[in-house]
């Protein structure tokens, strides 16, 4: 592929904690084409959210620090950009949707102010125009009676509606990239599907690329073009969604897929969990991060850290063991 919208190379983010320096994102690299949907999958603490926040340089400093790598977006390295340049990009070229719709909206400001604010910040719109546009945006995310809802406060809305409002806010400046950090985790299952479908539809309409951060493999299957699996702050496998489901190569991915309960499985069959605990980021095992829990680990796995290699066309894995 020729021109990538986003190229993340060797991104590394560390946090200072009482247990010492913790590497939350460890040498992560991936590409994203314009209009593409990439799902970043992993369990809690695998570094998904920190990867997203690092790309926008929203890691709180002092405790956090981006120690290496580059995030090239539209030909410019965001890690080298000044704070003012980053402010001009956030909400304008890249927008982010957060996990908790109940707390992501300011309780003392109306929806119109919050949805319209990116336009005032980035487009120099006056507030009257921003309010009008906010009403239009709320309509596009299918909030009923949108023009009147501009004057509503977040507490007057349900969780699903608030997440719709967050999406409207993210869409305000027609960003080229939307990062959605577990956008549906806090919502009811039925609402989840609606929100994801809406997000997918709106990104398709506007041609924006989408990074969908999730721990739900079911979400990935339906909405993502490509998948990146993270474990212990590292990327362990990337492939197209279809390829990943058909031919999972990394033992961790296989474990994840095997642990999903299936409706067509024989009654009484036990769930198959991945044994053991996710690694403590302050005390990472030597070599491969997954090696202590891995059933096919070899002596090599504890000695050196596997690099990402292209095992099949457009399918990378970080594992020494040849999967059958």
């Amino acid at each position: 592929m020729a021109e990538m919208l986003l190229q993340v190379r060797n991104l590394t983010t560390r946090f200072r904690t009482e247990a010492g320096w913790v590497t939350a994102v460890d040498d992560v690299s991936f590409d994203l084409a314009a209009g593409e949907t990439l799902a970043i999958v992993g369990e809690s603490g695998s570094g998904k959210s920190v990867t997203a926040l690092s790309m926008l340089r929203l890691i709180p400093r002092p405790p956090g620090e981006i120690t290496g790598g580059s995030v090239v977006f539209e030909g410019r390295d965001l890690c080298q950009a000044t704070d003012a340049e980053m402010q001009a990009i956030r909400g304008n070229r890249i927008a982010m949707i957060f996990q908790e719709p109940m707390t992501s909206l300011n309780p003392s400001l109306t929806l119109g102010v919050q949805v319209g604010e990116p336009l005032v910040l980035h487009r120099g719109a006056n507030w009257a125009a921003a309010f009008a546009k906010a009403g239009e945006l709320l309509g596009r995310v299918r909030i009923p009676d949108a023009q009147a809802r501009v004057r509503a406060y977040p507490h007057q809305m349900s969780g699903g509606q608030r997440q719709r409002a967050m999406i409207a806010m993210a869409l305000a400046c027609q960003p080229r990239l939307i990062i959605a950090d577990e956008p549906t985790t806090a919502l009811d299952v039925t609402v989840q599907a609606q929100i994801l479908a809406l997000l997918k539809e709106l990104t398709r309409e506007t041609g924006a690329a989408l990074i969908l951060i999730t721990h739900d493999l079911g979400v990935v299957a339906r909405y993502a073009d490509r998948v990146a699996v993270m474990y212990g702050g590292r990327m362990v496998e990337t492939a197209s969604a279809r390829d990943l489901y058909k031919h999972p190569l990394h033992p961790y991915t296989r474990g994840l897929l095997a642990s999903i309960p299936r409706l067509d499985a024989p009654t009484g069959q036990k769930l198959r969990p991945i044994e053991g605990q996710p690694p403590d980021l302050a005390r990472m095992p030597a070599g491969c991060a997954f090696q202590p829990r891995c059933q096919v680990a070899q002596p090599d796995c504890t000695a050196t850290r596997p690099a990402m290699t292209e095992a099949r066309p457009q399918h990378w894995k970080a594992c020494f063991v040849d999967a059958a």
Partner: protein
Amino acid sequence: MAASSPGWLRRLFRDKKLGAIGLVIVLVFLFCGVFADWLAPFGMNQISPVNRLKPPSAQFWFGTDHLGRDMFSRVLYGARLSVIIGLSAASIATFISVTLGIVSGYFGGKVDMLVQRVVDAWMSFPELIILIAVVSVIGPGMPQIIGVLGLTFGIGGSRIIRGAVISVRENMYIHATQSMGAGTLRVLLRHILPNIMPPVLVLFSTRVGGVILVESGLSFLGLGVPPPAPTWGGMLSGAGRTYMYMAPWLALAPGLCLTAVVYGINVFGDALRDLLDPRMRGSR
């Protein structure tokens, strides 16, 4: 938000009877202070040698002092001085508290450390000592009283605002605003300030009462606004103390007014805090 809608006023009169009484006292006090010129039957320093030390009557509602000045008029003008000093010093104090509290609470780290140690140092001085020092250097007078009271109360109150800012700062919507490209100043003024308005309003209302009380204490000691300005504290210490047995109304009039006003402000402030605190909603 709650503070700007009439809902809180209705709840005040329904759920907080004492607070409503406080509000009425505060409003009467403000009214008297603002319209003292029209309400007072005599000038504040108008002397009437034939009517010295007269007890309260139809003509002189609160009696007269040893120079024949009408106590009712003087108490009204005293209310004006208290309003001016109370509101302006409390405004300065609240401004200082909010500025220091937001800077210290939002930026945290080394900035917070530095600001809070300065606040510690300042608060370790008794405010009366600072006031006496300032007055002895530049002499008594209203502007310096307002300035020093504003500064002292302001620095102390910054702790409350800092705490509120720290709890607001950690909210997801602040991160969300930053992710939309808002700069620091916008985050502070537009997104954090409205969310700390309840403690700010309560701080302001209680500061008004506190300032009035301290100012009266200073005037009583002769360190406040110098006579013949009719301050309540000055009236208590001057004629009030000298003629306490011959003419008790000289002490009772300003004393009772001071007590009522400070009481009113405090119960109103308490009720306001309860009404604006979401955790207290529905409780009495």
